[in-house]
């Protein structure tokens, strides 16, 4: 019997080891980007012969990377506003409406996620044909906003569902008008969800390739398009540098999320007290 127990124990260790290995395999390639970005030569290696900041200088000094970054920042920011606003309105309607409308609206909001991205990109391409060339960046934003819309709606709807409806009734019974109730009760309680939705839709928009690829033209190139071209034609450590920046951005977002959650927990605890 103790033999059986030893085998069971061994199995558990193997299982745990395997799981941590899978996690390591998920993360290590991303970690490897750091040494790759620090390489000196044009050929890339996870173990560069000489460490240098050459490619960092190249990226930060190169105007093409910089303009790609600012285009992405612009389109992604507008896209975030779009998906968060429409997402909030849709989530509110979904949470507070009767069943038939609700499921229809839900499916409509999820469509951009269900439809393959190429097709969303294609339809955005069609949309662009109706709009003057100067407005192309805005069309990119709209397409990226559409891609972020399903996630934003889901997250905000989840946080709105978490609000006890009797709280709203209480606020109304205490004499708040609609706008006050929204500003003083609904919004603060849904804030965590709204912020998460905004952060996620920003990331989605910022990383979006196909829409921008379909609508790109000289002088309007987002960061993913620049990376895509670079991987296709150049393949230099500059891409690793940009990747490291992108990952730092995600770390920042995750960290901010954790901080927001902590602050929310603390302020909640204070309210309870």
């Amino acid at each position, binding site marked *: 019997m103790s033999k059986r127990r030893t085998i069971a124990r061994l199995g558990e260790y193997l299982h745990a080891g395997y799981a941590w290995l899978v996690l390591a395999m998920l993360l290590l390639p991303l970690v*490897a980007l750091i040494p790759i970005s620090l390489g000196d030569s044009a050929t890339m290696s996870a173990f560069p012969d000489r460490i240098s900041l050459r490619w960092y200088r190249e990226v930060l000094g190169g105007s093409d990377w910089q303009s790609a970054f600012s285009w992405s920042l612009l389109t992604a920011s507008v896209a975030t506003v779009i998906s968060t606003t429409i997402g909030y309105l849709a989530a509110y309607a979904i949470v507070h409406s009767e069943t038939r409308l609700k499921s229809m609206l839900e499916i409509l909001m999820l469509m951009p996620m269900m439809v393959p991205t190429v097709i969303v990109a294609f339809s955005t391409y069609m949309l662009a044909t109706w709009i003057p060339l100067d407005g192309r960046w805005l069309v990119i934003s709209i397409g990226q906003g559409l891609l972020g819309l399903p996630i934003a709606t889901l997250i905000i709807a989840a946080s709105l569902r978490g609000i006890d409806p009797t709280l709203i009734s209480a606020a109304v019974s205490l004499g708040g008008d609609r706008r006050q109730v929204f500003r003083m009760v609904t919004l603060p309680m849904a804030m965590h969800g709204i912020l998460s939705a905004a952060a996620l839709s920003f990331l989605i928009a910022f990383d979006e390739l196909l829409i921008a690829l379909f609508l790109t033209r000289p002088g309007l190139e987002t960061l993913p398009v620049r990376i895509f071209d670079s991987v296709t034609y150049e393949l230099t450590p500059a891409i690793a540098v940009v990747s490291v920046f992108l*990952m730092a951005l995600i770390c920042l977002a995750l960290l901010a999320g954790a901080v927001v959650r902590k602050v929310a927990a603390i302020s909640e605890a204070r309210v309870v007290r």
Partner: protein
Amino acid sequence: MLSLAVILFFVGVTFLLPLFNVLLLSISDPNGGVSLHHFRALATSVSLRPVLINTAVTALQVTFFCVLIGYPAAMFFARLEGWKANLTGVAILFPFLTSSLVRTFVFIVLLGRNGVLNSVLVSLGVPGAPFTLLFNHIGVVIGMTYVLLPYMLLALIGTMRKIDHTLLDAARSLGAGPVRIFLTIYVPLSLPGVAAGAIITTILGFGYFVTPALMGGPGQRMIAQSVEQRILIMYDLPGAASISVLMLVVVLSTYAVAARYLGLSRLMRPQG
């Protein structure tokens, strides 16, 4: 009601209308009439058939590997609690959030003939090393499995976490051994998560662009690339539209069937 109008107007103008336009394009006729001309062309196209087969095979293979690799790992992660659960959660979320471009790029570096993997294999004296892992089918499958594994993990962990552990205790008290408990209780109860994860990875894999475009050779072209090529290089919008409609039919019917059995919300919120 005003907000509803805003939503419908926005989504209608920016998404539904253009999408409808794509549908129209696919059944348009060079003379401005309506015909199934483009679909007939697709059906007889010699170049498209291998692409379709390759797309389906790749998507299914990637899903298979995601389940195979992900299931045992997810079982372990689902059991964790406290800071360990938070840590693994963030560790899975991180690659999930990282751009698929970045993740594909790093695999191009690591899988190259002089990349880390091959160096390790050579130094271990594995016969046949270095292998060609790029710009072929193996490379695409490895890359896509890496890119899509987090989706599978999140779907699996979400479902496995909800499995009531007293059920396992109950089975134990009723006399079942560990293997039997796993097969008769754990697996059936985690199956909805496997199904949700598998459907998500299959559908995403089916429409995937970045990884096959960057890691595949000409023989590994997938259907999303065919659409892109027709739009950007061949300017064959009706052709692109007809392939899009084909994809749309495949994907939406898969969703419809899956939603019947699993519920739409389960598919959309795999992380629970």
